[in-house]
Structure formats: C-alpha cells, structure tokens
C-alpha cells in the first residue's frame, strides 16, 4: 500500500449520553510525519485517539489504517503511549519488566523473553536515558521518568504508527528534550507519530502537521498552512456552533 495517509478517520461520532464528545470527525494523518492533536480541555482529543485505537466504541463512523506491511495485524503496527496516570505505580515490577511488556506480542504465548528482546529493551532504555534505572522499582520513578519508561515500552514494539496522549505534560525540561528528540528521530526513520499535545508555544518547533479539534473538526494540515491565529481562535474559543444553522453562538 503506498497511500500517503497512515490513519483515515471518517464521520466519527462518540457520545456517552446526549452530549457528543466527538462530532462527525473527518480527518487524515500523514505517514512519516509528526502530527499534533490540539484542542481545549474537553475537546475530545483523548477520546479521538482512544476511538482510533478501538478502546472506545463510536456511535458512528470508521477508522482505517494504512500500513507499509500488507496483511499486518494492526495491533502489531500501532503503538499506544497513554498518560501515565492510568496505571498503579505500586505494582511490583522493575523498569526493565515494564519495557519488556512491549515485546509480548512479538514473544507470543507461553514463551519467555529472548536475549534479543532483552537487548532491545536495554538499548531502548538507553535511548530514553533510563539505562541506569533498569532494575529500579517503578514506584520510585518521577513523573518524567515514568513517561520515558512508557515511551521505551512502546518503542520496543517496533510499530509503524505511534499514538501518544500528552507525553510532554508535566515533565521536566530534560525529559521533554529527550522525548521530542526521540520522536523526531522516529519520524525520520519513517514512523508516523501522532501526539495529543497541550502546549501551543512549542507546536511550530516540534511538529509537521496539526489536527485541531473542539468536539468537531476545526482544521488540519501542515503546521505552516493551518496553525494560524484564526484557527487557534476558532479551536480554543468558547463558541459553540448551532448545528442547524452553522452560525456561531456566544
């Protein structure tokens, strides 16, 4: 498959009760690019990626992937890095244990991690600057370190598409630099990296493409053409749009 889009979302609507969280989203994300998903709180950014990953069932719409390897089991080619808050950090596991979990779909049932798996895990820990922490209990890590471990866990999956939920939120400067440099090199290796991002100030420096949503799709495309003052206003303003007339309410 040689399409230039890694992910294609069509007519996606997600609603838990009467109020929709995502409404009629049509968006595509390009292959081999670093894409930011932007929007205010409650805009549905996390919901969008969870719906893409199949963790949430939409009310309507569809999500398609395009992989370079045909016939791929999509689980193997899409890696998900969630916000670190969703996990019990007192769980008895070391940093290396957690990173090795990313290899489980490669290892398969009933088998134990091989030397190659362990070497890859250690190498990846080194890439995120956590090699010295490999035997440390995960409860002893700081927020930024937890985020880096999750990143390493997803890297060892050797996936084509990476989807991350606010990986830079609340992390220290050192972690932020390590992570964004790593994401850029992943993009350079041809991976598609999609990131829910919270900091408008860094979008121009970090990302190639943006997807701007606020329950509905506002704008998407390259940062240079679409990340404009007007679009930022439209995305982050408290306007709601009258669904019937298409006019802005206040």
């Amino acid at each position, binding site marked *: 498959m040689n399409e230039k889009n890694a992910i294609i979302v069509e007519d996606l609507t997600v609603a838990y009760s009467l109020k929709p969280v995502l409404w009629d989203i049509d968006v595509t994300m390009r292959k081999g690019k670093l894409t930011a998903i932007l929007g205010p709180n409650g805009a549905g950014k996390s919901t969008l990626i969870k719906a893409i990953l199949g963790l949430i069932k939409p009310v309507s719409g569809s999500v398609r992937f395009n992989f370079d390897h045909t016939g791929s089991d999509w689980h193997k080619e899409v890696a998900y890095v969630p916000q670190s808050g*969703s996990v019990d950090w007192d769980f008895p596991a*070391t940093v290396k244990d957690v990173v090795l979990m990313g290899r489980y779909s490669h290892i398969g*049932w009933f088998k134990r991690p091989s030397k190659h798996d362990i070497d890859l895990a250690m190498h990846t820990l080194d890439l995120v600057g956590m090699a010295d922490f490999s035997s440390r209990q995960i409860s002893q890590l700081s927020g930024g370190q937890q985020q880096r471990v999750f990143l390493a866990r997803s890297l060892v999956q050797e996936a084509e598409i990476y989807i991350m939920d606010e990986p830079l939120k609340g992390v220290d400067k050192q972690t932020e630099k390590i992570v964004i440099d790593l994401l850029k090199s992943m993009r350079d290796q041809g991976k598609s990296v999609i990131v829910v991002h919270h900091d408008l100030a860094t979008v121009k420096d970090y990302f190639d493409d943006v997807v701007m949503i606020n329950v509905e799709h506002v704008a998407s495309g390259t940062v240079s053409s679409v990340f404009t003052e007007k679009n930022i206003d439209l995305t982050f303003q408290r306007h709601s749009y009258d669904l019937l007339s298409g006019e802005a309410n206040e």
Partner: protein
Amino acid sequence: MTCSAVKQMNNLLSLLGDYTFQVVAVGSCALGIISGISGSFATLRQQSLLGDSISHSALAGVAIAFILTGSKTTEVLLIGAGIVGLIATYLITQLSRFSKANFESVMAVVMSSFFGLGLMLLTYIQHLPNANQAGLNRFLFGQAATMLSTDVLLILIVAVLIILTVCLFFKEFKLFVFDRDFASDLGLPTGLLNFILSTMVVLTVILGIQSVGVVLMSALLISPAIAARQWTHHLSSLIGLAAILGGISGLGGTLISSSITNFPTGPAIVLIISLILIVSLLIAPGRGIIWQRQQLHRAKLNVAADMILLHLLEVHKSTFSAADFAAIHASQAPLYSMDQLVKNLQERHSIEKQESLFIVQESAIQELSGHLKKEEPDNA
C-alpha cells in the same frame, strides 16, 4: 518438661500421625496455597473486597442448596454456594453500574443481605424434621475436619490447575493486571484473561469456605498477598511467597483447631496469617512501618550533622578540632549530642579522625559545596 507438656507433645505427635488429620491438613494447606495465588491477583487488581462478597453471599447458597435437594454432600452445597455467589457478584456489578449508588455501598448491601438471608435459612433448617443443621453450620467459620478425602482430592486438582495456569500465562496476567489498556492494544484477549482470573478467585473462595468459613474467607484470600508484597517487588516472588504463607497458615490453623475439640478452623488459620501480616507490615525492610521510622530518624540525624559540618567548613575550612566542633555545636544547640553527630559523620565517611584533629573528606566537601551560597539572591 512437665508431665502435661509431655502429654501435649504426645497428643500432637499422634495427631500428626493420624491419617484423617493428614488428609485434612493437606487440604487446608492446599487451600492456603491457592488463596495466596488467587489473592495476589485479586489485590493487585484492587478487587480485594469482591472475594468477601462472594463468600458472604455463598452462605445463602449453601442453605438454599440443602433446602432444594435435601443433600448435605459437599459437592451439592458448594455448587449452590458458587451459583449464589456469582449471582450476588453479578447483582453488585450491574446495580453499581446503573444506579447512582457507588460500588462499595452496593457491595456492602448485597453482601449483607445475602448473608442475612443465609443465616435466616439456617435457622429455618434447624426447625425442619430431618434437621442436622450442625452440618451446615460448619460453613460459617469453617471446619477442616469435616473434609473428606474426595473433597481434598478436588482441592488438589484445582490447585494443580491454578498453578499450571499461572505458570503458562504468567507474563500475560502480569501485563493485564498492570495495564489493561496496553494489553488490549497489544492484542491480548483481555476478556478471556479477566474471566480466568475471576474464575480463580471464585473457585478459591468456594472451596475455601469449607476450611475457613464464609465470614473469614476474605482474610485468607488477601492477607498472604499483602504480607508478601512487603517483602518483594517482583511479581513471581510475590505469588510464590503468598502461596507459602497461605499454605503455612492453612496447615498451622488446622493443627491448632484439631488439637482443641470443637474449635473451628477458620479463626485459627486467620489468626496465623494475620500475625504474619502484622509482622510484615511492621518490620519488612523498605516498606515496613518500623523501618520507615528508622529511615526518618536517620535522615534527620544526617541533615543535622551536615548542617554543622557546613558551618565548620565555612569557618575552619577542611580541618578542625573537637573544641571547634563543640563550640559550634553549642551555638547551634541541636537535638543531638556531639558524640552522635561525630559518629554519624564518621560512619558516612564525611570526616576522618587524625590524631586530635578531624579532616573533612573530599567527597563530603563536593557534596556540601552545592549548599554554599555564591551570590546573594534578590529578595523583596
């Protein structure tokens, strides 16, 4: 040894040699082992109390099974217990999902209602013509001595199955319990894994109530795992240790209750595992309460010693005498004696005594120099 002590020893030895006791002890020990294993996963999944609701509700199941079938055989009663336990769990999950009441309130209400129903039915059974409800009472606090060798065989089969399952699916269980979403993203069958783990807990509870009884079963389910957690931070060791602690409690409790007539096994088993748990909570290195207190005291002492050393560095540079130390110690008036502070600094290799003088070590100077102010910051 006194005469009665010798008699007790003899009683004990004859007990241990008794075939019936051996069968029952093996059964309780195996129950303790599977409780440790299943309980490890239950506690890590934050589902500790679910085992409690299954076991309390099971009492009604035991009573209903007897009323409907008239049979007092273990298999029939346990099937009744299992069915009602599952119904109760289903009720709890559904009610808490669809009503405004929160999960714990729903669980408490359902559990106590079924338990109350069970007690009522037991009393009713007592008044029936073919009563011999004493047989059913054993499910309240457990009586391992009523287990037949067929019952113990069933327990051993289940134990082997559980151990095999955990060994085969260890890494999948580990990932599933740690991060369910990620497991789902990797393509693991999370529904199936959930089912297997839940079934393990249900089986453990239903079999366990023979030995421990419905009231105390949840203690045996979760205490070994919580105690084990204090001693290790590897999942494999946690499960292994929990199994061992559970097994010891099962065995020991049975020993105690068999030595005393009419003493139910449940309280005896739970007494042992509770003692183990309390000790673990107190003294385990790294997580124990006492250990943490000691660490705090140590930290305070370290800081006090460092502060004095800092003063000494600023005034006397890297060499000072005991008199210098005493002078600063007096003016700082800390809570520690000079001997304590000097000993602390020596133990940490911050200072060395050479004849009558103290030399501050390079490493300590490096560490503390970060605290020396280079410039006055702007203040309001």
